[in-house]
């Protein structure tokens, strides 16, 4: 077993991880561990843009952006964090431009901007052009630009290294004569895919930037590799997870496939229609219609289908209509997504509307952090040296529903903050001693998976998990569907102890890693469902049919899910609450 020593170790090489690495790598001895190659991460699949109040094409300011973010998140957003994000958005876009990102340009040569869902002028008066973009491949350009700058700064990458455990220790600290135990992080345990060997990375600072958990669902825009590993390792080591009941369903996934068609299509003028040809969003959001936030549009679509106005032979999708747009305009602004429609569904978007349905897209919740990206062990205790940024984290800037483009923004603003803070901490702190037998749990986990001969198949358990999550923990939820989902997940967990991994080798054993990833998926599905059960109200992306109203009196709080085997009624997940931070906006009814 090899032991490596770095000031800073970053887990994940998507947008947040590489943005952190660019800062940290110039200040401290830094390594990035990624289970993929750096440009494979799912940041590259983001399409529409990154909002910042540059005001390049019309009047705008960061305060309006803050308000939209808070209202978009149905007031569950921590307003200090939203202010930081909207304010630093401007610099974040300019940073990327200076790093070389090829933004689309205005006739004057400035960065061009376009409309996006929920982004408005003057507190909701009308849609505003705020999204900075590069055609419909903004995420691709961000990922490439960040990798290019990592190459420029000689950042060290360990490719295809899976981080499977976080080495946490309880350290005695004495403050004002009082001695107590505090959580400290000593490093991570990592599995090298090529050799099958475990490596220890000891570091003063760890940044978790490993992305989301979309693969708990069947219909999803997410990559196969988004299995919640980062959330999982933190949760297993006693770190709570915040607001996990809030999962975003993107309105326009290609029907039946879940492949994302950017909201930029609607930003450029496309609209949704039901089987009767009706532009139904006029009924649900009279002011901004098809550019309402994603939770509202997704729910409206699902409702049209439920009420029998779905299109297609099974009446199970609606239609995204671009046929009134000029083909040249579509080619210039939306080339990739129109190609997806042609390639995967054989539909020509110039002349035919495209079948779409909501697709599981983004975890609003995650590892709780403060605005310096420091991880919290409870409502206010920082774990020194441990940071998280991007989809894996919950700052919380997205509250109960993220606005489109705010994820690319989140990774850039809080990735940068995490990188700077992690390096600064590492330059003053000492290494924490690696605990004895640091790999014993990971080895047990791997050996169990490798040697078990129970005959259960990983792929089948995963499929059944995804089926129940799609059926019971999707856009509409009730106590009944959630309880049923929990009991199915528990039975799947039991079967998971009896899996057989066919590949017994050491080299590139992806069969084994899929089994490990399924373990994280099961844990996260359980947390998401238990948190959804706990929240007896409807807010943002979480809609309880048995509690259809927002209930500020009882639930204007974040949820904090802790691993706790004694909480048997909720499958070993204990739910607590954490206050929302308010600065300037009081909750109002959310209408568009």
């Amino acid at each position, binding site marked *: 077993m090899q032991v490596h020593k770095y000031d800073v170790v970053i887990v994940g090489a998507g947008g947040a991880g590489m943005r952190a690495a660019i800062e940290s790598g110039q200040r401290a001895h830094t390594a990035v561990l990624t289970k*993929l*190659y750096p*440009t*494979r*991460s*799912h940041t*590259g*699949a983001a399409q529409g843009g990154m909002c910042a109040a540059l005001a390049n094409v019309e009047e705008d300011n960061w305060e309006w952006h803050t308000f939209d973010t808070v209202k978009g998140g149905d007031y569950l957003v921590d307003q200090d964090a939203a202010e930081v994000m909207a304010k630093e958005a401007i610099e974040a*876009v*300019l940073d990327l*431009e*200076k*790093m*070389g990102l*090829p*933004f689309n*340009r205005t006739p004057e*040569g400035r*960065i061009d901007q376009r409309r996006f869902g929920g982004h408005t002028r003057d507190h909701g008066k009308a849609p505003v052009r705020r999204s900075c973009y*590069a055609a419909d*491949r903004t995420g*691709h350009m961000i990922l490439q630009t960040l990798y*290019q700058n990592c*190459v*420029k700064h000689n950042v060290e990458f360990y490719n295809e290294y899976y981080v499977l455990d976080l080495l946490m220790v309880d350290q005695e600290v004495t403050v004002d004569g009082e001695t107590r135990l505090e959580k400290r992080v000593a490093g991570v345990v990592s599995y090298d895919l090529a050799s099958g060997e475990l490596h220890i990375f000891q570091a003063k600072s760890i940044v978790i930037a490993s992305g989301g958990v979309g693969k708990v669902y069947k219909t999803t825009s997410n*990559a*196969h590799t988004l299995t919640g590993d980062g959330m999982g390792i933190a949760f297993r080591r006693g770190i709570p997870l915040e607001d996990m009941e809030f999962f975003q369903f993107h309105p326009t996934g290609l*029907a*039946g496939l879940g492949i*994302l068609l950017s909201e930029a299509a609607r930003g*450029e*003028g496309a*609209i949704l*229609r039901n*089987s009767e*040809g009706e*532009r139904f969003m*006029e009924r649900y959001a009279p002011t901004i219609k098809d550019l309402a936030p994603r939770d509202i549009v997704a729910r409206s679509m699902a409702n049209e289908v439920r009420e029998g106005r779905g*299109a*297609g*032979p099974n009446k199970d999708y609606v239609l995204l*209509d671009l046929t009134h747009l*000029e083909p040249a*305009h579509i080619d210039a602004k939306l080339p*990739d997504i129109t190609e997806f429609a042609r*390639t*995967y*569904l054989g*539909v020509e978007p110039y002349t*035919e*509307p495209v079948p779409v349905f909501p697709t599981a897209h983004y975890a609003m919740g995650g590892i709780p952090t403060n605005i310096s990206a420091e991880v919290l062990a409870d409502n206010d205790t920082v774990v020194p040296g441990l940071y998280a940024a991007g989809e894996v984290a919950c700052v919380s800037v997205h509250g109960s529903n993220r606005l489109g483009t705010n994820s690319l923004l989140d990774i850039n603003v809080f990735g940068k903050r995490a990188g700077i803070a992690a390096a600064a901490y590492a330059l003053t702190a000492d290494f924490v001693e690696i605990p004895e037998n640091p790999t014993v749990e990971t080895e047990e986990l791997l050996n169990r998976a490798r040697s078990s001969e129970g005959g259960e198949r990983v*792929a089948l358990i995963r499929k059944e998990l995804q089926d129940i999550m799609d059926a019971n923990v999707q856009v509409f939820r009730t106590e009944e569907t959630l309880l049923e989902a929990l009991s199915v997940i528990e039975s799947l967990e039991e079967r998971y102890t009896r899996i057989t991994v*066919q*590949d017994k*080798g*050491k*080299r*590139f*054993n992806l*069969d084994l890693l899929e089994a490990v990833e399924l373990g994280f998926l099961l844990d996260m599905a359980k947390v998401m469902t238990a948190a959804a059960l706990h929240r007896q109200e409807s807010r943002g992306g979480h809609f309880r049919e048995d509690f259809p109203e927002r209930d500020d009196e009882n639930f204007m709080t974040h949820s904090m899910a802790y691993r706790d085997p004694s909480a048997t009624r909720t499958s070993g997940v204990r739910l607590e609450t954490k206050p929302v931070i308010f600065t300037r906006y009081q909750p109002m009814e959310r209408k568009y």
Partner: protein
Amino acid sequence: MEKEPASKVELAPGVGGGGEIPTFDITLKVRRYNPEISDEAHWDEWKLTMYGTDRVLDALHRVKWEHDGSVSFRRSCAHGVCGSDAMRINGRNRLACKTLLKDLDTSKPILVEPIKGLPVEKDLIVDMEPFFQSYREIMPFLVSKGHSPTKERLQSSEERERYDDTTKCILCAACTSSCPVFWTDGQYFGPAAIVNAHRFIFDSRDDAGDMRLEILNDKEGVWRCRTTFNCTEACPRGIQVTKAISEVKQAILTRKV
């Protein structure tokens, strides 16, 4: 700009496709290699029933998840943007997630092999390090001299358009590993590295074009290109790779971009 679309329209019958999605049978043959077991490579084959919208990646997953878990390949996004699953499908370099089975001749076995010219590690997984090494050598990052402006640098839409095509690269290696020169001479930079050099050489904001042209004027640089167009055919992003290489050659000769 666009007109405000109608609140209600008459939809054509059967709009958005319809009817049953047909299933069909295929034979999938995969080139297997695992040095832990044997130094010899061999073919394995499976007969599978697949659906109308399924891709080669779906067939590989079906094999891995239902028949033989040891079949090894890389994949992530599954819709052609991450570049993980370039492989040789019926002798052509393609992304498995973008190749619909119904577009192949399913009356014959579908042959899937690793991309050529890079060392095979296991089954369809190759060592990507030599490929990324070439990429890193062409200075794939913006270099600008002088003070950077407070706000963004200006760039006209025409200047932006000049290098648009080569910004689409996803580093999948389909082009480089389709190049006969690269197969026989692993030192050759290969098309992907040149595409990424092009992306910066023709960016009006960049000041290191001369250095990159000097690097590519090397004996393992652009002059090894024999203009066979394999790379352009292989690119899953539709980049005009051969054209980009020609533009770089031209720039070296004239020292003008």
